[in-house]
């Protein structure tokens, strides 16, 4: 579904991503892990067109999106969340979702007034459903800035979903969450997979990555050093050395 072919991004002399080959299959939850600065977020930013690619190719559903702008990638069906929460804090929760849903050149062609003022009935129902899914029922009229940290993270997820993507790029969605919230996030990701979404999950929280992904790629210094199922990755000596740290601490998973 998503294929990266010898993808590279250099910032001056720094090779943030260096010849990365990766393929994410349809309906998969694919984990992308690695130490800080290993190029995970850069990869996400390359895929959705925020940074221009230095070399290599990105294909999505057999389309070349290597040089596509962010909104073109979104229209193609790739939505993302941000490592640092990025919401429209001055707008209500409802407005954040409503505009995200319609952002794309309005494929729905209900009447002008409906489209611009209240949103069609179907759009409204979609937003309600997203609020329910993200556990934000009853918060629709709050300003996004007034939500708690966990709620803002869930709103980001809901907003990504509002654009009806086929693929989600989640950049550290569990950062700063407690165990209970991580468990809820895991449930949500499972539900999304069952719904047919493909997910690329960049994450440091190993409980989540190991528990939810089908396959994992490990980056170090911009290069892929391992790929496989969670079990294979956990037992890979290279990964242990580069990422999970010394052998005696590998068991607790956090490193």
């Amino acid at each position, binding site marked *: 579904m998503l294929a990266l072919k010898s993808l590279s991004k250099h910032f001056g002399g720094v090779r943030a991503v260096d010849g990365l080959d990766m393929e994410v299959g349809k309906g998969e939850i694919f984990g992308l892990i690695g130490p800080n600065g290993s190029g995970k977020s850069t990869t996400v930013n390359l895929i959705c067109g925020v940074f221009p690619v230095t070399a290599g190719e990105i294909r999505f559903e057999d389309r070349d999106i290597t040089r596509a702008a*962010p*909104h073109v990638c979104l229209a193609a069906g790739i939505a993302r969340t941000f490592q640092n929460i990025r919401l429209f804090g*001055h707008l209500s929760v409802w407005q954040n979702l409503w*505009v995200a849903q*319609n952002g794309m*050149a309005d494929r729905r062609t209900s009447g002008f007034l409906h489209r611009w003022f209240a*949103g069609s009935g179907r759009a409204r129902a979609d937003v309600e459903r997203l609020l329910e899914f993200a556990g934000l029922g009853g918060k629709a009229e709050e300003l996004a800035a*007034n939500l708690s940290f966990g709620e803002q993270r869930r709103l980001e997820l809901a907003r990504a979903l509002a*654009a009806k993507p086929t693929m989600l790029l989640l950049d550290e969605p569990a950062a700063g969450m407690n165990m209970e919230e991580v468990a809820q996030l895991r449930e949500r990701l499972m539900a999304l997979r069952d719904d047919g979404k493909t997910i690329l999950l960049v994450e440091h929280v190993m409980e989540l990555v190991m528990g939810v992904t089908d396959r994992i790629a490990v980056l170090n210094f911009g290069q892929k050093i391992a790929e496989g199922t969670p079990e294979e990755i956990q037992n890979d000596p290279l990964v242990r050395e580069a990422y999970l740290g010394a052998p005696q601490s590998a068991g607790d998973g956090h490193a």
Partner: protein
Amino acid sequence: MDDHLVGVLSNIGMISFIALSAYLLLIVGEISFGQQAFFAISAYASGIATAMWGWDFWPGLAWGAAVAAAAAVLVGIPTLRIRGLYFSIATLAFAEMVRLVFEVFKYQVEIDGEMVGPDGSDGFRDIRYIFENDITAVEYMLMIYGLLAAVLCAFFLLERSRLGSIFRMIGQDPVLAQMQGIDVTAYKILALGMAGLVAGIGGGLYAHLTTFVEPKIFNVMLGVHSLAYGLIGGLGTAFGPLIGVAIDIGFLESIRAISGYRMIAFGGLVAVLLIFRPRGLLDEAAVNWIRLRLRRRHA
């Protein structure tokens, strides 16, 4: 109603248009020091239409506002590609340019043996439509407030619409807005055109109230004030800039005992608010809080 009060209220109403115009651009995240240019353009254009071409008032006003909006769009196409401070400076430069053009702009025709029309730095006299048609000061004030009410209604509809949400999104995080498929530059040009139209309505009203316009009144202080009104009153609702105008014109300028201290008080007020309430008295959070309260009471 006494004349002074009518004059003050008319002034508040007129200045409210240019304040709303600057407010609209603040919503999309741009600081314009040049809204007085569109106010001026419409003052001249509508004055020319009624005093020299013999048009009626309403078509003249509409024409003035339309010219101002068109000028705003034309200015917006090159300037909105630059952002932030650079945009602010470009608007300031444009406004000064417009003022200097009016300093040398001469276009006069003979009407009843008298020369009528803009006469460079001597200004444009005898925009006498209101007098010639026996419209009283109170009637004219009501016309101003009728138009203001209509424009306010348009603003409230805007805030409820998707367009309003898009404007606020662009104001808060243009990069994120762009990622969501919003053509930021196009929407900003639209906002600038709408702001030009609103400033233009005010300018046309102004020319016909004072019957006389001269270039130097459209100086940068008018633009700075109209910006400050939104920043004082708040950027959460279109009532915000109106509160700013009411405080400045209605209180500081119009009460004789304190009018000498106007700029001191006004400057201090802006400074204090920028520290304690950077988005004004009625900012987004305050407006949402009020909205939720009202809804709860009704429910």
